[in-house]
C-alpha cells in the first residue's frame, strides 16, 4: 500500500441558518454527516451524487477551505513525525505543509481565475505564498522557466505567461487552473467537477491530462462529479453520497457491476443507454426529489424515494456496514 495522505473519520459539516435582528442560529443545514475515508498516494477516490448531496462541501472540508468537525488526520511527507490532526487551526509550519500537499481544482474555470491576474501571476501566486518564487532576479528567472515548462506539460504554449484569462477558452482555462494546482507539487488534488463546465469535445482532453499527470507523478485525486461514467473511468474506489451521507462505497468496477443500494441502482438506471434500441432510462424513473437537508427524515435519508422501503426504513437510520470485498453499504435491506 502506498503512503497514506489523509484519513477522515466521522467528518461532519453543518452550516448555521441565521434569522432575525440578532442573527440567532435557528437551525443547521447538515451538509455533510459522518464521512469516513482514507486516501493514499497514487489512487483516486471518486465521489458521486446529485446536487445538494454534500459532495462539494466534502471536498472543501478535505481541502480545509471549510472548517469541519470530526477528525481529519494528515500524514506529512516522510512519515517520521506521525499524523497531525487537521481539524481546527494548525501551527504555521504544518499549515504550509498541508497546503503544499493538498490542492484543489474548481468546477468553473470562468470564475476560479482572477480576471485581473495574468497567467504568470495566477500560477506564481502559490509559489509566492510559500516563499518559493525566487528571492533575487536570477532565482525568479529560473522559476519563470519552470512555469513555462509546466504550461507546456498541461498542453498550453509556454509563451502565454503574460496573457489574461479572458483570452482563453474554457478548456484552456481549466488547464491553467490545473497548472496552478500542480505548481507546488502536491500529493493530493481535490477535483470538484473539473469538466462539467466544459464542452463535450474538450472534457475528455482534460480528463486525459489529469490521468496522465497522475501516472507520471503518482499523486492522488479526490474526484468529485455527478457524471457516473466519468467517475468510473478515473476512480479506484467510489463513494455514492445522498443527503450528506455515504450510502454505498466500493471498488469502482465492482460497484458499477453490482450496485447493492437502491439509490445506487436508481442512479445507474437513470444514465442514458446510448442505444436507441435499448431505451431504458425513461422506463425506470425514480420519482420524487431529495428532501431538504434542513430537516432530514428520521430514518433512512433515501427512504421517502426508495421503491423498496419498508417500515423500519422510516424509523431507524441505517448504519454504514462493511460487506465482502471492502464494499460498504447503509441499507436495512442488504
Amino acid at each position: 500500500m502506498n503512503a497514506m495522505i489523509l484519513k477522515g473519520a466521522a467528518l461532519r459539516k453543518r452550516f448555521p441558518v441565521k434569522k432575525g435582528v440578532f442573527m440567532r442560529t435557528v437551525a443547521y443545514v447538515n451538509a455533510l454527516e459522518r464521512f469516513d475515508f482514507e486516501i493514499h498516494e497514487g489512487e483516486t477516490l471518486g465521489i458521486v451524487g446529485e446536487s445538494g448531496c454534500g459532495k462539494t462541501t466534502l471536498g472543501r472540508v478535505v481541502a480545509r477551505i471549510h472548517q469541519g468537525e470530526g477528525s481529519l488526520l494528515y500524514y506529512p511527507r516522510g512519515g517520521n513525525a506521525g499524523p497531525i490532526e487537521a481539524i481546527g487551526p494548525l501551527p504555521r509550519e504544518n499549515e504550509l505543509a498541508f497546503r503544499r500537499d493538498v490542492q484543489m481544482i474548481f468546477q468553473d474555470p470562468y470564475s476560479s481565475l482572477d480576471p485581473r491576474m495574468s497567467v504568470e501571476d495566477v500560477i506564481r501566486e502559490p509559489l509566492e505564498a510559500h516563499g518559493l518564487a525566487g528571492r533575487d532576479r536570477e532565482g525568479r528567472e529560473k522559476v519563470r522557466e519552470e512555469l513555462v515548462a509546466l504550461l507546456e506539460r498541461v498542453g498550453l504554449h509556454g509563451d502565454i505567461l503574460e496573457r489574461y484569462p479572458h483570452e482563453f477558452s474554457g478548456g484552456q482555462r481549466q488547464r491553467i487552473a490545473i497548472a496552478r494546482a500542480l505548481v507546488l507539487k502536491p500529493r493530493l488534488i481535490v477535483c470538484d467537477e473539473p469538466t462539467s463546465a466544459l464542452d463535450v469535445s474538450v472534457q475528455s482532453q482534460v480528463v486525459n491530462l489529469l490521468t496522465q499527470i497522475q501516472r507520471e507523478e503518482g499523486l492522488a485525486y479526490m474526484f468529485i462529479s455527478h457524471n457516473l461514467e466519468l467517475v468510473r473511468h478515473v476512480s479506484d474506489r467510489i463513494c455514492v453520497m445522498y443527503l450528506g451521507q455515504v450510502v454505498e462505497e466500493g471498488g469502482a468496477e465492482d460497484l458499477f457491476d453490482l450496485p447493492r443500494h437502491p439509490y445506487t441502482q436508481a442512479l445507474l438506471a437513470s444514465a442514458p443507454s446510448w442505444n436507441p434500441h435499448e431505451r431504458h432510462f425513461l422506463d425506470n424513473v425514480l420519482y420524487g426529489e431529495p428532501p431538504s437537508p434542513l430537516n432530514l427524515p428520521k430514518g433512512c435519508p433515501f427512504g421517502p424515494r426508495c421503491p423498496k422501503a419498508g417500515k423500519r426504513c422510516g424509523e431507524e437510520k441505517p448504519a454504514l456496514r462493511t460487506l465482502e470485498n471492502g464494499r460498504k453499504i447503509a441499507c436495512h435491506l442488504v
Partner: protein
Amino acid sequence: MENLLEVAGLSTRFKTYEGDLLAVQNVSFDLREGEILALVGESGCGKSVTARSVMGLYSGSHVRLEGSIKFRGEELSKLSQDERAARRGRDMAMIFQEPMSAFDPLATVGEQMIDAKLAHAPAAGKKEREEARKFAVEALRSVGIPDPEMRIDEYPHRLSGGMLQRVLIAIALMNEPKLLIADEPTTALDVTIQAQVLRLIRDLRQKNNMGVLFITHDLGVVAELADRVNVMYAGRIVEKATVDEIFSEEGPLHPYARGLLESRVRRDLKGKELPSIPGSVPRPVDLPPGCHFAPRCPKAGPRCLSAAPELVPVGEGGRCAACWLYQGGVQ
C-alpha cells in the same frame, strides 16, 4: 405525416463591435407532427439561436434574419411582430435551459400560467380567469406536480429546479401548442430528475401528437428520446440522420459527429486514454475559411481548408452530410 415546421436557408447575423457575427448559416430542416427532432451541438454552435429565430424572439436592427420559416404552410418570416406574438405560446411554445431564471420572481406560478393562457384571449373576464385557473391546476397535475391546488399559489423560489422545469412545461402546454421547442431543458437538472422530465416530454408528444424540436449537447439523451438528429457545428448543420443511423455500427458520417460520439466515456476504456477532439470550438467572429471543422479534423485535406462543403444527401433514405469525404475527396 404533414410537415409541421419547414425551415429553409435560415441565417441569423448579429451586428457586434467586433464585426458581423454569423451565428447560424444557411440552416434547413423539417419537423413532422408527433416527431422529436434533436438539434445537437456544443456551446456556440448556433443551436439556441436557431431555436430563437424559429420562435421569432429576435427583433431590432442589430440582428438580421434570412431564409424561410414555414409553420403549417404559413410563412412566418413575412409576419409582423404582433402577428408573430399572437402565434407564440399558442401554436408554438418554448422551454428554456435555466428554469430558475425563466420565471418572474414576483408572481406566483399560477398567475404566470393563467397569463400565458389569457394572453391569447384579450376580452377575458372573471369567468375565463377562473376557468384558466382550473385548467392550470390540471396542467400542473399532468406534469406530475404533487398537490397542484396548493402549489399553484407558490412563488417560483419555493419550488426546486426540477419542479420549476415541469411548471415551465405546463405553461408551454397551456394553449396546447402543436410545436414545442425545448432548449437544453435538462442540462441544469440532476440525472434522476432529468429522466423524469424527459419521460414527461416523451409522454406529452404521444398524447398531444406534438412536434418537438429538442436542443441538446448530450448524445446520450438523444439516443433515449429522439427520432431524427441534426448535428450542428460552428453555425452550420454538418449531418442529418435518423437516431438509428447515428448510433448504428457504422456511426455518424461527419468526422465531427463521429468525434463527439466517440468522446463519450466508455467502460472498456478504463485506464486508457479517452478519444478526444483536439483544439477547441472556434469563436463565431473568428471562423476558419472552408469547412469550419477542418482545423480540428483528423481527415482534413487541402480542399477542406479552402472551400466549405454543402450539406448533400449521402446514399439513400435522406441521410445528409456536409463533408468533402462524401463529395469526391479532400484533396
